[in-house]
């Protein structure tokens, strides 16, 4: 006999048509799966009653794959084939991975995304993540007694398109239907039931194992909007472990430990860190393979001191997010703490002092994200009445745009725009008779394409030949609910169209994204000047080209003296345009306009005469 669950009024499902949906927090250190059962969101346990699945995958020589706690146990004995914190490698190249030197893996630097060589062959981070997701899917199906309709999977707000796509791919490999990807802080806000809280601005401070995210949410009329997100994609609890690990090496006088010893010391550091949230001092005793003996005592005071820079590092993105939102710390009504690392008392204290209020910590910081994802999945699977549905708005983390003449980035969707979204802008041709246009889609905050990240390129062909500036090409950017971008270009008179779904090559770094944001602010002034220069250069090139063409067809309208004067003005303009002096180009442009005035008006007269030639006055409609 199948076991039944209580439905919402009027939402009973027909037999065999249960809409089983789960939320999955695919974390760097631990992963969880949650669902809404009998109207109550809950995390699902494994056979041992544990909620957290360590995000660890162990590949054995006999083809077996072990995931979770059992895999964690082999970290120290078989580090090379035991993959931990794989989320850090999702959609990233080898050069983007921090602390490579202390990682015991056999990295293979493949195009785009890094690979790991294991006893079962070369594995991509997508495959490793899929093993974790598969484990959670099976747990959910055993717990819920049926196949899953779909899942909501959470990702850091900072994940770029490559990392989101990699996550979706991993889910597909694991046999999951992704209802949507949800930003982790947004999921936490749902779990805290902020939609029922009083209206205002809330901040979600999420310090997980490997990523730090800060989100500023505005709640109005029961709807939340993420007004700003920021963070550091390479900062988390693991870094606190790493600081402690380095401290142990220094104080025990150990240098260059073996893979196995490194792993054991790191595990010890993590354990000690967790104890220091409750105890004032913790002893560290370990006999290493190298024969070194570690016998130290670490106090909370020391730990706070060596990790202070990390805590301070989290506050920088917090300030930036508030600045982006145009808010100050006093405007924030409540602060939600998410992620196991927020259990550390000195983290809570620093956040409390920054916002001038005690942060919310009453929900388990490890499970809030999965719980929120489950609640969202429940809505998306259709288990809640339509009028109860809440709307959730996410934002894109970096501006999206297109390259225009002069290597300038024209932003089409500004950063922090809510998604899903679609924006269009009209462009035109630069040269007479131009029949094709090439589009370069870029992401970033800087003014010049060279400083932004290239996402994709495509071409629109079959534009009918027209004079420069006559064609109208509408470029539409569309970002779906998962934050994935598609771009289309359409010539409006003929309807010829070209489009591309931006499935960027793997391996684009997410801390690169953070860096790009930062450099966008730092270089604002220089960028403005460079944009001004590029614009003048484009204008000069356009004028020179048009003049040269006119001289070929209508050069006979000028006498030799006039021609020489115009040529010299043209040469001066060309010289100025080759330089980097905006003012010089501007001055030469003005001078050239004056010099070419007479030529332009004679051409005008000529074209009017030729238009009128052979026509009687009464044939003309004026």
């Amino acid at each position, binding site marked *: *006999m*199948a076991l*039944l669950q*209580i439905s919402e009024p009027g939402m*009973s499902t*027909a*037999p065999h048509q249960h809409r089983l949906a789960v939320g999955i927090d695919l974390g760097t250190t631990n992963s969880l799966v949650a669902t809404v059962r009998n*109207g109550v969101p809950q995390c699902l346990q494994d056979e041992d009653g544990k909620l957290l699945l360590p995000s660890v995958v162990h590949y054995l020589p006999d083809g077996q794959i072990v995931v979770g706690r059992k895999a964690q146990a082999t970290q120290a004995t078989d580090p090379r084939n035991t993959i931990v914190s794989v989320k850090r490698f999702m959609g990233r190249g080898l050069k983007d991975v921090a602390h490579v030197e202390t990682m015991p893996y056999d990295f293979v630097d493949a195009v785009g995304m890094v690979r790991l060589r294991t006893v079962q062959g070369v594995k991509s981070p997508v495959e490793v993540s899929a093993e974790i997701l598969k484990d959670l899917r099976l747990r959910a199906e055993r*717990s819920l*007694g049926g196949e899953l309709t779909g899942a909501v999977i959470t990702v850091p707000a900072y994940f770029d398109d490559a990392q989101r796509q990699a996550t979706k791919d991993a889910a597909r490999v694991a046999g999951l239907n992704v209802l949507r990807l949800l930003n982790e802080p947004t999921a936490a806000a749902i779990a805290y039931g902020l939609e029922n809280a009083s209206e205002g601005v809330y901040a979600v401070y999420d310090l997980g194992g490997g990523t730090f995210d800060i989100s500023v949410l505005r709640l109005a009329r029961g709807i939340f909007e993420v007004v700003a997100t920021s963070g550091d994609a390479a900062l988390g609890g693991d870094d606190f472990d790493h600081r402690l690990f380095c401290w142990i090496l220094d104080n025990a006088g150990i240098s260059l430990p073996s893979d196995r010893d490194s792993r054991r010391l790191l595990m010890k550091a993590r354990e000690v860190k967790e104890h220091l949230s409750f105890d004032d001092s913790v002893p560290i005793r370990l006999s290493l393979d190298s024969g070194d003996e570690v016998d130290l005592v670490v106090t909370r005071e020391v730990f706070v001191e060596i990790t202070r820079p990390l805590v301070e590092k989290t506050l920088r993105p917090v300030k930036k997010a508030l600045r982006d939102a145009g808010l100050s710390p006093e405007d924030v009504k409540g602060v939600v703490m998410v992620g196991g690392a927020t259990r550390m008392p000195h983290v809570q204290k620093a956040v409390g002092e920054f916002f001038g209020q005690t942060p919310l910590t009453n929900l388990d910081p490890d499970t809030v994200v999965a719980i929120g994802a489950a609640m969202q999945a429940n809505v998306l699977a259709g288990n809640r009445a339509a009028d109860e549905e809440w709307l959730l708005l996410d934002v894109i983390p970096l501006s999206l745009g297109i390259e225009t003449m002069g290597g300038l980035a024209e932003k089409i969707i500004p950063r922090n725009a809510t998604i899903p979204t679609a924006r269009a802008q009209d462009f035109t041709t630069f040269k007479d008779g131009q029949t094709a246009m090439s589009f370069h889609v870029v992401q970033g905050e800087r003014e010049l394409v060279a400083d932004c990240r290239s996402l994709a390129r495509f071409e629109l062909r079959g534009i009918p030949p027209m004079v420069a500036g006559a064609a109208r090409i509408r470029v539409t950017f569309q970002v779906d609910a998962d934050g994935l971008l598609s771009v289309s270009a359409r010539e409006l008179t003929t309807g010829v169209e070209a489009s591309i779904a931006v499935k960027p090559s793997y391996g684009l770094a997410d801390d690169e994204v953070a860096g790009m944001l930062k450099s966008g602010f730092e270089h604002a002034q220089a960028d403005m000047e460079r944009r001004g220069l590029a614009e003048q250069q484009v204008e000069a090139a356009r004028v020179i080209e048009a003049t040269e063409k006119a001289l070929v067809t209508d050069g006979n309208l000028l006498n030799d003296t006039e021609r020489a004067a115009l040529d010299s003005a043209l040469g001066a303009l060309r010289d100025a345009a080759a330089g980097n002096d905006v003012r010089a180009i501007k001055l030469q442009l003005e001078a050239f306009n004056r010099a070419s005035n007479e030529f332009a008006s004679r051409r005008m007269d000529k074209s009017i005469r030729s238009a009128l030639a052979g026509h009687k006055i009464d044939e003309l409609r004026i």
Partner: protein
Amino acid sequence: MAVTLSDKAAQHIGNFIAKRGKGVGIRLGVRTSGCSGMAYKLEFADEVLADDVVFESHGLKVLLDPKSLPYMDGTELDFVREGLNEGFKFNNPNVKGECGCGESFTV
């Protein structure tokens, strides 16, 4: 005529309603659908409808529409755990046959 809740079922339902934050009780019923005739309805109830048949069991209101009652008279709703799975089960003396999975039944 009565429909009742087992101790365990009552305990869990009370708990679920408390966590849900609203609800006057639980609504049971049968619908004609499913692979073997009838299917159970098991929902939270936010209000008592005019025609409802109301039973009290362990201090909880159990609501049924009058048409469902003949199919469910004498039923006890139980809460059971099977491995990782857990949920509600109808012990219905009127049932003559069930489909393989037990989600629908005939009387």
